[in-house]
């Protein structure tokens, strides 16, 4: 199998730093910000982004603005896939009503996960604004959805696989973490 590293640890870190500043810029500051990561790899990315936002704006408590949003039960492919166990949904104490919610995921592909996330979000409350930040946008959208903040636009063929391996979720001995690779599956 052919694999190619497209982002290494430093690239991921730089991309996240830029996205953190873009989020602050688009929101004109840190007021009402809530970062919700989509399991599994969106959540550690949300935690990293919150830390960077807190570093840029000392009035922000990183732990108080970050949460996790599980979308499993809202997917449109539940009956076409092996059963998926749900992950916990944890919202910040302040809730999401009238907040600026930034959804965070690792890879944006068909857009169906984000469609599910929007449905899940609406059952939990009514945010003022919902934005989307992703580390990788690999194209091949199947729904009218786009990201507001993108780490890297990655032109891919749909026969390729994009794997994001993070320290928090993919720590297995011998496998390098904190990098993004493309696997060609011929």
């Amino acid at each position, binding site marked *: 199998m052919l694999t190619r590293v497209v982002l290494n640890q430093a690239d991921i870190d730089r991309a996240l730093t830029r996205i953190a500043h873009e989020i602050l810029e688009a929101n004109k500051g840190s007021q009402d910000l809530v970062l919700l990561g989509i399991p599994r790899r969106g959540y550690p990315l949300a935690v990293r982004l919150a830390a960077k936002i807190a570093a840029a704006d000392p009035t922000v408590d990183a732990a108080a603005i970050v949460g996790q949003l*599980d979308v*499993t*039960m*809202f*997917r449109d*492919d*539940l*009956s*076409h*896939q*092996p*059963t*998926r*166990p*749900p*992950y*916990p*949904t944890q919202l910040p104490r302040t809730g999401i009503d009238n907040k600026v919610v930034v959804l965070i*995921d*690792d*890879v*944006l*592909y*068909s857009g*169906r*996960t984000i469609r599910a996330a929007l*449905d899940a979000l609406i*059952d*939990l*409350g009514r945010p003022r604004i919902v934005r989307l930040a992703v580390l990788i946008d*690999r194209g*091949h959208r199947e729904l009218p959805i786009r990201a507001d903040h993108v780490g890297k636009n990655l032109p891919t063929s*749909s*026969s390729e*696989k*994009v*794997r994001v391996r993070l320290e928090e979720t993919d720590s297995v001995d011998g496998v390098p973490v904190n990098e993004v690779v493309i696997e060609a599956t011929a």
Partner: protein
Amino acid sequence: MRHLLSTEDLSLQNAIRILDTAEEMAAVGEREVKKLPALRGRTVVNLFFEDSTRTRISFEAAAKRLSADVINFAAKGSSVSKGESLKDTAQTLAAMGADAVVIRHWASGAPHRLAATDWIDAAVINAGDGTHEHPTQALLDAFTMRRHWAKLAGIPSTGADLQGMRVAIAGDVLHSRVARSNVWLLRTLGAEVTLVAPPTLLPIGVEKWPCTVSFDLDETLAKGVDAMMMLRVQGERMNASFFPTTREYSRRWGFDDNRLRALDTLGLKDTIIMHPGPMNRGLEISSAAADSPRSTVLAQVRNGVSIRMAALYLLLSGETREPAASSHAANPNATYSHQESH
């Protein structure tokens, strides 16, 4: 997992999976919108050949919270009272397109029969068969115990088991499918189970079960118990005299006010008192015990909905069995692996 028929053959991995999924389902009950779209368009039939209020309502609430359509079928007032067989009833339900059948039957083994034959191609959930098993009740009991046990240990309950927990189950073990299901499941989860009952209310072969048996409730309590489960005295199944009087039963095997006080004097401050319901207050459990802060009776009812949601979700959400789904899967652009579902 294709069916949920018994806890005896439920693996540790599957048991933990159901309990963990139920933890996430429990969170839905605390939301503004207490509903998930996961089973939209699926039909769940509650097939009850025996009276039940809480189990049927609990399954109905669980299915509705997952957006499934629910059909309630009670044997009374149906063609079963005209002599229809289980096979014909099942085939009728199959023709109506049931995706899951929740069955309670007075005959032990009826759910297994339904699952093993080709009468109906639906997931079968045993909601109590005769004096055999009642797996979802055991799972909700284990869920309640696990939350308590994990809280005492100061760890999150997700992923945990019941290693080292001492559980006593007292009362009418002979007629109790709840006791049977609990013994198997609690053994799988690593708890130590003691059954306490008069010799007349113990089944033949109980010595081969993976638990200890005692005839003396006070002695069992004195040895230390972390969860005390009282079973209902099933008057409707008793066609012989199993104990001299209800007063004697209550004094020797009921959880009365004296035994409630004894928990404090024995220093068992974290022991919980459980009952699967419906309770015979004053017989197997006193009102003071049933309403004490130690009692988990209402928590058990609440957790029952979460457990049944988890079971329905895990049995029904996988790949559909209709051939229509395979044409979709044959298109490589439409298939995503679990890791790659963006």
